[in-house]
């Protein structure tokens, strides 16, 4: 299994731990990732707000690079990148005028968009290409006793539910169960983490992060598992501010790939776990 890999800016910055855990875990499962050469920022939510044409062209360049690189599929682990790349394809399909313009612009640097390169999220690939069973077989250190609240956030399921149920996604639940963890059912799986508002408008943004953490804690979770660097950041980095404004709700938020790595027996520091502000504590292995 070979995929083009579009890390996105966050996985090289605040979300480094995601990449640090994703790469070894996928390698361990026999999935080969080849980083897209000279990829650029997807545009995220900010670019759409200024100029949708340029936002499209920006994302389309990456799709064209994937095509030039001969990749049949592109993996985008960051939810924002995943959505933007998918959305761009939808947008170009729906608006022939925009497609003409974008193709023309790409043409000026000899890039072309002649086919659809499916953009996949790691959850999708792990569940549907690798399979839960294959993952279960790699588990050497089951996460028994760890109660995890799976948190999907917005953009992997909205507005395009391509690989999971929009209202009640379960792909991560299945993975976590395969790792031996206990899955906490909660109604906030797909609620918003505050996005970039945590930085720009903390009153509004941080409140959402606070409520998520509070509810997960209330439902007895030991940790929140996330699939998006921005969600991880918002739930991990602002504990001081949240405590100052509301109340302390300390709870570790980790990437699901970090949990996979741990269950596969990989050392915590190779999975970027030392980068989180709230450290994850695994329950002592029960004598069995």
């Amino acid at each position, binding site marked *: 299994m070979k995929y083009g890999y579009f890390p996105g800016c966050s996985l090289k910055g605040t979300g480094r731990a995601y990449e640090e855990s994703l790469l070894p875990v996928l390698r361990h499962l026999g999935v080969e990732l080849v980083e897209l050469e*000279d990829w650029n920022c997807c545009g995220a939510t900010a670019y759409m707000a200024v100029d949708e044409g340029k936002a499209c062209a920006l994302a389309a360049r990456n799709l064209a690079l994937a095509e030039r690189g001969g990749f049949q599929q592109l993996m985008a682990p960051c939810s924002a990148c995943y959505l933007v790349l998918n959305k761009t394809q939808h947008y170009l399909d*729906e*608006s022939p005028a925009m497609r003409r*313009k974008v193709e023309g612009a790409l043409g000026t640097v000899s*890039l072309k968009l002649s086919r659809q390169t499916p953009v996949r999220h790691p959850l999708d690939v792990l569940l549907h290409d690798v399979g839960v069973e294959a993952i279960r077989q790699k588990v050497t250190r089951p996460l028994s006793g760890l109660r995890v609240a799976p948190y999907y956030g*917005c953009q992997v399921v909205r507005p395009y539910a391509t690989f999971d149920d929009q209202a009640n996604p379960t792909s991560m639940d299945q993975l976590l169960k395969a790792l031996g963890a206990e899955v906490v059912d909660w109604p906030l799986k797909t609620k918003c983490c505050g996005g970039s508002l945590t930085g720009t408008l903390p*009153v509004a943004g941080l409140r959402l992060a606070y409520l998520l953490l509070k509810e997960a804690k209330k439902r007895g979770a030991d940790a929140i598992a996330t699939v998006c660097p921005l969600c991880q950041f918002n739930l991990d980095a602002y504990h001081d501010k949240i405590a100052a404004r509301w109340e302390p709700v300390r709870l570790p938020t980790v990437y699901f790939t970090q949990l996979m790595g741990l269950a596969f027996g990989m050392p915590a520091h190779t999975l970027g776990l030392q980068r989180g502000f709230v450290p994850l504590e695994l329950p002592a292995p029960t004598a069995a």
Partner: protein
Amino acid sequence: MKEIQRTIKYEADRVPGFGREVMSVPGCEKLKDCIQCGTCSGVCPLSIYMDHSPRQVMALVREDFKREVLSSCTIWLCASCYACTVECPQQIRITDIMYELKQRAIQEGFYPKRFPIPVLAQEFNRMVHDHGRISEGRLVTKLFLKTKPLEAAGMAGLGMRLMKTGRFSLKQENIRDRGDLARIMEAMDAPASGGNGKD
């Protein structure tokens, strides 16, 4: 008691054609079908802070109250979670309409000067435009220096801790073919024969 304000709208407060213009943008057409049920506001995680609920924004756009809409904080509070778009019974792409309104507000300078969200959007784009990638540390630092120089100090603690965990750097990331990217963007700026891409 709060200060009283005139709330009546006169015909002169409208900018006739504004609604039609927005609704002619691809993806925004279905706004015409809005039945004002309020589902969008009901599912919006940020609606509780908005001066006009998303539903009201839809009504204001349709009735051409341009000034009211573009100066509303609602469009900037939208975090693009797409809950409204997914739940709307009329399948109106509310998130995309919010993007369209953000664009217009920026073009027409309709937001408060030090309001951080549009500044973030612009800084973000400038960085992508110049370097091809976002260096989150630099972006955030810039943003704070521009909008809330006083609070920037308050964020320093977070910055330090991020730096300690290796997640914060002021180093600028660059892509190799910056020239290519610039050329693509330039081509997008050029008025195409097929209109502005919004037809």
